[in-house]
């Protein structure tokens, strides 16, 4: 079993989603504890990738591939965990992540998701081109601590403000921290629209979340 977890970890580091898929299926087929597979395999692997990324030892496409592989593994194992009525264990917090309406840029969000997962957060990635309302509905559904909204275009960054406006309008602003990110955004913009957090990179976003949720 230990061997299988090590293989899973390595497949995440290699960014090989096919192998991650096969191994995750094996976990299910052989009734191996899926929580352990996630904790000891997938998360250990993405932790390594996160460290290598911070150290500048891997390139963006490598991290992207690992993040994608991570999604495949979680996509198979999480439903199994739910089916078995098991708990995934304590997480540091829950974050709903998505790219705003009109914007289909996926990569920054995926990497942010992978880094948050590696750091012990439970990540709900709701995809790209997501309406303000849908961010909030998902956050309510899962009881999220943070809503993370990505925008990569100056044409779409106003949709980040729409999420905050929606929360204010529905008296929900106090329930979630809103983090924004993406190329054209800045701390000044985050302040202007009333976002709780902004970070330039995925690992800075994690550090910010750690500080904010520790309060």
């Amino acid at each position: 079993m230990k061997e299988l977890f090590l293989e899973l970890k390595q497949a995440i580091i290699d960014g090989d989603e096919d192998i991650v898929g096969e191994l995750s299926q094996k976990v299910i087929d052989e009734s191996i504890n899926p929580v352990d597979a996630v904790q000891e395999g997938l998360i250990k692997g993405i932790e390594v990738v996160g460290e290598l990324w911070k150290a500048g030892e891997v390139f963006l496409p490598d991290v992207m591939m690992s993040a994608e592989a991570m999604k495949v593994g979680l996509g198979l194992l999480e439903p199994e965990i739910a089916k078995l009525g098991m708990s995934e264990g304590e997480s540091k917090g829950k974050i709903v992540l998505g790219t705003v309406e009109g914007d289909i840029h996926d990569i920054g969000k995926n990497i942010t998701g992978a880094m948050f997962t590696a750091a012990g957060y439970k990540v709900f990635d709701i995809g790209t081109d997501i309406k303000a309302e849908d961010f909030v509905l998902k956050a309510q559904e899962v009881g999220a601590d943070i809503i993370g909204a990505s925008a990569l275009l100056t044409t779409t960054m106003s949709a980040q403000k729409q999420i905050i406006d929606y929360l204010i309008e529905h008296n929900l602003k106090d329930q979630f921290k809103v983090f924004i990110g993406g190329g054209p955004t800045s701390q000044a913009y985050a302040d202007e629209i009333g976002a709780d957090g902004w970070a330039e990179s995925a690992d800075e976003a994690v550090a910010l979340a750690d500080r904010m949720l520790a309060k």
Partner: protein
Amino acid sequence: MRIKLIGCQSTMNEIHAQGLNQGMDCEFLDYSYHARPDRLHAKLQEIINQSQDYDLIILTYGRCSNSMLGLLSPRIPLLFPATHDCIGLMLGSTARHMELFKENSLTYYFSQGWLDYGRTPLAEYCEYEEKYGEKKARKLIKTLYGSYQKAIFIKTPGIKDLERYRKKVQEIADFFGWEVGEIEGDTGLLTSIVKGIKVPESIYVDGGQVVTLEILAGTQNGNKDRARSRL
């Protein structure tokens, strides 16, 4: 009046085709800055600093991922388009860009400059394939561009061989399985700005004034200075 033009290669063909570069010092920057707003910002600031002995600095950059944010020309005014990027600039206005964006945000726009000097999605795929092999390269490129549905070529002045561009766009679109379309560009805004004319969709920043979000955003909704005036 001595004018310095700092332009993106995305606008070079159109400017040359109309002879707008006559009588001014032009410097066209590499297209690859498109993907690195931080580097573009630094490069623009560097050239602005070196160009303080001119009377006006014209830029053909729009907000371009907010690369323009925070720029400061100590003594000389700046003039540039209030569009989001070169798509709006080639279409002639932000309004037209946004109208098309609302119609279908999943459109990838091409212009002659993009095809001549830029790094097309297909070229990017080829680079990845060489580096990471076909399997990873396909996955990467799908993550990057897989959601787009349509390629539209913006026709602007200066196109010598339209068929060559059509073929290029078709080749890229076929690779990704996109529909293909064409649209007439409108270089009216670009032309006015390069001629140094303040128009509603231009941004004019006095020397010593930092380019702020308010300046960039305020003019997105129409410049207060609506009167056309020759500088």
